[in-house]
């Protein structure tokens, strides 16, 4: 069964069409790169898949469940359990430490303190920032912030990881490390990864590349 199935998705802002009948699917563990110029609708597609935005027409099925038909509470529950997000600018909560940021999705799932601590420490160790657990985001480097963001996105073992330009704000070395990390955790957890990027090099780390222009997929 597909982890993600998008059918004939359209979205307009005012009169301007942003998405024009986008359809795509992803299997478990698959990594798909979404390439395209600025303004082509990549982030809007990602927001519709992640339930942060509603499509005008079409369906988005995550693990067989229609995101578009869910109530806001059901959407929130789906995001907690099945989706993970990584952003270009990390979006770590600035008043929480690295440890607390990573721990937060587990708290949302109601997992006990001992298990939370054990899993967070293990994952921080895995992504190489365990020693920075008590640091606030402002005290971390860009590379460290993205590692923490990736850890937060996968700590709850989501079926689908949505990564929006995860290397866009990093130097090439840190960017490469971040991509490697995403690939590794995807392989370890079996999460499908939808990677929005401008970079052909980043796209090469994925199993498949989708190209987008003017709100439509060119594949």
């Amino acid at each position, binding site marked *: 069964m597909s982890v993600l199935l998008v059918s004939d998705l359209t979205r307009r802002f005012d009169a301007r069409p942003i998405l024009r009948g986008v359809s795509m699917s992803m299997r478990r563990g698959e990594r798909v790169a979404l390439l395209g110029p600025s303004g082509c609708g990549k982030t809007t597609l990602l927001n519709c898949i992640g339930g942060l935005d509603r499509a005008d027409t079409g369906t988005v099925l995550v693990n067989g469940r229609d995101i578009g038909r869910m109530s806001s509470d059901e959407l929130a529950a789906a995001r907690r359990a099945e989706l993970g997000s990584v952003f270009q600018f990390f979006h770590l909560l600035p008043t929480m430490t690295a440890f607390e940021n990573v721990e*937060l*999705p587990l708290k949302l799932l109601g997992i006990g303190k001992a298990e939370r601590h054990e899993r967070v420490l293990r994952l921080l160790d895995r992504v190489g920032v365990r020693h920075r657990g008590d640091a606030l985001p402002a005290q971390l480097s860009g590379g460290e912030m993205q590692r923490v963001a990736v850890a937060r996105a996968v700590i709850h073992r989501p079926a689908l990881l949505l990564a929006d330009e995860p290397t866009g704000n990093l130097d090439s070395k840190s960017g490469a490390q971040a991509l490697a990390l995403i690939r590794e955790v995807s392989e370890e957890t079996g999460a499908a990864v939808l990677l929005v990027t401008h970079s052909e090099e980043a796209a090469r780390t994925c199993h498949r590349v989708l190209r987008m222009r003017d709100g439509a997929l060119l594949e």
Partner: protein
Amino acid sequence: MMRDVLIILRQCALRHWRLAWRQQVMLLTILALGTAVHVAMRLANRSALAGFVRFSDGITRDSDWTVRADAGALKMEWLREMRVALGSRPVTLLPVIEATVVPHIADAAGSVNARPIWRLVGMDLIALQNLARKPLQQDATAAPNDTVYVSDAMARRQGWSVGEKIALVIDDRIAQVTLGGVMPVAPDMPSPPDHLLLMDLPRAQELLRRADEIDRVEVLATAGAAFPNLRADVGTVLTTVAQGRWRVLDHEDRRAVADNMTSAFRLNLTILSLLALLVGGYLTFQALDGVVIRRREEIAILRTMGVTERAVKRAFLIEAALLGVCAGVIGVALGWLAAQGAVLAVARTMTTLYGASSATFAELHPAEAAAGIALCVLTSLVAAWWPARMAAATMPAAVLSRHPSSWQGGRIWRAGWIGLLLCVVAITLAQFPPLRWNGSRVPLGAYAAALLWLPGAGLAAGALLRVFRGARGAVLSVAFSHLRRPSVRHRFAVAALVSAIAMTCGMAIMIASFDHTMRGWITRAMRADIYLSSAGAQSASSTHVISSETVEAIRKDPRIAELAALLETRVTLPGGQVHVLGIDNAFAQRHELHAWVREPPRDWWLAGDAALINESLGTRLELDTGSTIALPSPRGEQTFRVVGVYADYGNERGSVAIPQPRFRVLFGKDDAWRVAVMLKPGAEAEAVRAGIQKAHPGLSVFTQAHLRGEALRIFQQTFAVTYALEGVGVIVAVAGLGLALASLMLDRRADLMTLRAIGFAPRDVAATCAWEGAGIALAGVIAGIASGVWLGWLLIVKVNKQAFGWTLSFALPWGQLIALGCAILLVGAIIAAFVGRWAAKLPVEQEA
């Protein structure tokens, strides 16, 4: 630079005003209301004061000099002496006698302050006719003996026509007068006060039973070539022949007396009106802060185009100034409208306190309108200063890169030591002695301490937010993480709450302490079974008395065991008038009526020169046991030795008590100001009261229980306005909390999106905000109540003692404080939840 500023104003500000017009209307309303309250208070205040001053100017043009006795009344023979001393100088001496009177209302005997207060003025109507530009409508000299004249407005309001019979309470009698006509109004003269009854002098003296006495002489000099320095010359002559019997006051002296008498009252009103503006300023600050956050992206774009920080800051300040001008104009207009209602209330209060104010209409002078607008602009600019600075400091890269860029604020504002420093300075200032000014004591150090303490405690209280840690759930974790590392907005929100709660608690403590002290004092001082006074004694300035014949008639009632009369007169000492009381010391000692601050020896009254003073006089004139005090009297100045000090919460002007025999000798008065009656066992107080009331309808007769109830009712009525202010303070603080949270949420839009991406449902986002708001409210409540206790102590131990000379016992109304804290927590959390629900619906930022 100016071109850049204009571009910002046109492209950003005006467009926002148009698109977000509701927000602009709210901002305008907030500022305009603050200004309106200030202007209304000020106009009503000035108008009532003008009415008060106009009282002495209302009949003739301003006189050049006014002659008054230092103690008691002037004698008619002294008037003749003045005339002789002035020789052939072209001077008119206009003798005046005056008294407050009230209409006789048969069913109004049971409550104090239930009747309108009028002033009966007796003048030489023939001299007045000669001076006036318009004669009275009737030949005053041919009028019957009981004729009075009133203003047209008063006649119309009361529905009187010429020939109307008017029943007045004068001392313990009911007298009837007849309306002879209305007083004329000349275009270049002030209109006559509309609670004035004018009567011919000899007839007024007869009616008031004060033959051969006058209260003042108005002196009008007619300048001419023969006497080039006539005015000064007249003043010198009258002062020279006075020999301590009277004092000669010029126009400025009279205004100064009025000004001095009402200065405390006006100071309170001014402080209240400034408080309203402060409240408006605080809400404007919160609202403008939100505006800056909304426009941050535009500002960043302009900055990338080369617009300087200074231009951005200047544009925001100009926008704030424009906002201030618009709001100021609306506020002045609203204030003027509100003043028309307020002036009646203020005038009524001044009439009750000081016996005279005739204001009914508040005029708006251009200078006052300009001052109101200027104050509004200033408030708007002060409120906009920090948001404008923030706008100018916007880093384009931070905003345009869509970094999570919630702003923590400058280090200096986050430093708790500034708050602690202000508190330490406040504690030091509280130790300063009062400033002596114009015979009054102004607790300037204590006021400054209160003003510094509020922001100090507020800023220091931000540290309390750091204790929020260790939450289990995700919602609480996020909420507490913001509290644990509070931004400047968090701190300002806490500071505002602390200020409002502290002020409210301070007031509550002061009122509770007053209440506690007053009840104790009333229980001690009001021990007699029945109290009598003239029904005309409706204001603090009333001079109505009960004649010794009436007192003796009442004494004959077989149900009465004891009866004590209190004699009273007023003398002028530095800082204002003081009551001199002739007391029945044996009665007072037997029933322990005095609450002693310094207890005298039991036989003090045997010494001829011994006197007791009340605490407020002792504080005002720095007198204590062993000091001497010189009292002017018709027999010349008499020096007394202070042997005791008593508490007296019914009189802030000050009083001196001397034994009755000495009083009668010095002041020649035997009529009673107040009478206390002790009944024989088994006598029914209510029945005796009803009997006395029936026999003497001109008296107010109260049983002990009724008078105690009335005293407490008046006390609570006096403080009713402070309860309203408490409510306003709390509402503003909670509204400020809502606005601060809205700004925080707007600032944190990127974080909100992250929370939703992680899996926070909208209600979780709302709950996060609610907990954050509740945390701020809790910190505000804890620090606010603690600060309020200190503020209450400051008000009671320092301000009251220094300003009024009253020692109050300290009472903490715990139940009230806890209820206040719980209410603020609850309302704060509810408002925060509403803001959270709104924030949860904010659209996700689009990154195409």
